[in-house]
């Protein structure tokens, strides 16, 4: 069973055991517009919560994606380098950014569930 949580910065985390898969929400991609480039963190990098972990660029601008929690990057989605537009077409599934080992489960406590996130973007 996975649980999906959300940040106020419009990232989603699918929690499966001690691993979280991280991406940006459909709302975020709709605000960014056409994504033309994604820069992902290096596998093995240890991220601290709120530090810039990835960059997503539209035709107009570059936006940082912040680490929603702390932990080690286990895997990144190389498909996004070849096809950045996946972020627009399938933000909350195929266009995941990276997987991170959850270093501190207490950090999950500050995240939103789907209902709370919906209210946040309403």
């Amino acid at each position, binding site marked *: 069973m996975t649980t999906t949580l959300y940040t106020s910065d419009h990232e989603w985390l699918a929690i499966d055991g001690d691993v979280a898969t991280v991406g940006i929400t459909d709302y975020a991609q709709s605000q960014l517009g056409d994504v033309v480039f994604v820069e992902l963190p290096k596998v093995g990098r240890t991220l601290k919560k709120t530090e810039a972990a990835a960059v997503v660029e*539209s035709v107009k601008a570059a936006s940082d994606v912040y680490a929603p929690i702390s932990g080690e990057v286990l895997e990144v989605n190389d498909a996004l380098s070849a096809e950045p537009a996946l972020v627009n077409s399938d933000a909350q599934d195929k266009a995941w950014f990276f997987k991170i080992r959850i270093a501190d489960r207490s950090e999950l406590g500050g995240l939103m569930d789907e209902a709370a996130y919906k209210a946040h973007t309403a």
Partner: protein
Amino acid sequence: MLARDDQNSLKTTPLHGLHVSLGGKMVPFAGYDMPVQYPAGVLKEHLHTRSQAGLFDVSHMGQIALRPKSGKVEDAARALERLVPQDIIAIAPGRQRYAQFTNADGGILDDLMVANFGDHLFLVVNAACKAEDEAHLRANLAGDCIIDSLSDRALIALQGPKAESVLAKLCAEAPAMKFMDAGPHKVAGLDCFVSRSGYTGEDGFEISVPSADAERLARTLLENPDVMPIGLGARDSLRLEAGLCLYGHDIDTETTPVEAALEWSVQKSRRSGGARAGGFPGAEKILAHFDNGASRRRVGLLAQGRAPVREGAPLFADGTGSEPIGKVTSGGFGPSLNAPVAMGYVPTSHSALGTHLFAEVRGQRLPLTVAAMPFVKNTYKR
């Protein structure tokens, strides 16, 4: 985010209601509330303009009539030559030319279009500079000309390979116009000024229309299925691929026309040895740049990777040097090239086509090559 007061103080163009009704995402630009994109998005808007036709609201730009007090247009042209390094006298009736207002240091105060309408000159200047430009004209040309701010007119650009066939339905003379032809024409029965020019690298037209009629004309043009409304986002990516300068970014008071690689826009008659050499602000410096070369130059830059290199990125001669040699002044992603594109200033020694450079983006040195502009071949109807 803007404070509420700032939002309220934004000006609007006569097409503001149309933008909102079309779902435009409105942003502040040069003091105006303008659409950065419509629901189609920047990428589709850009590609549609290159394959069909795009409609742009550029009503925020300044339109000025320069009317000679003598009644002779050449007197207005001679007067304007005191402020720009271009040959204005040689602009034939019904023709338009690209120009720059220069300052005493040879820098560029603004870039503009100048058209000869037979009995007066018609100027189109940048939105952000229009108040200063008008003051500059009044301070320097008021003895010779009436400076008439045409603030009751909107400006609509129709750009792309279908622009001619679209406009032909509303203006029978349009197809016979050539690149940089300009003059009064009826469009859909309205009293318009039409020029065959634009800011996309595509064939197309710019149509000055009375404000009261602007929305009706825009809606009529948009009824044609070939025409899509285009926001400022795609306007920027289109002009960048076309290698065209954006004032305040690629050219400003610190850059001379020679440094900006705009030599083509300064006719021989105004250069050293020409019939009317000099006689414009900063002539000494600008002509010295023509005669002896400038130490830096605006160049096109193509990235080898996929990461866009944006305005402000420092440029380096190699992958390790600590001293930047230049700076990117415009950069982003070129949807038609499907690759990052940029322009910036480098030492003339590093400006030859094919020169390898590096831009620093988020702490990494990305390889770039100095490349010819336009990046996308222009399709002007000459």
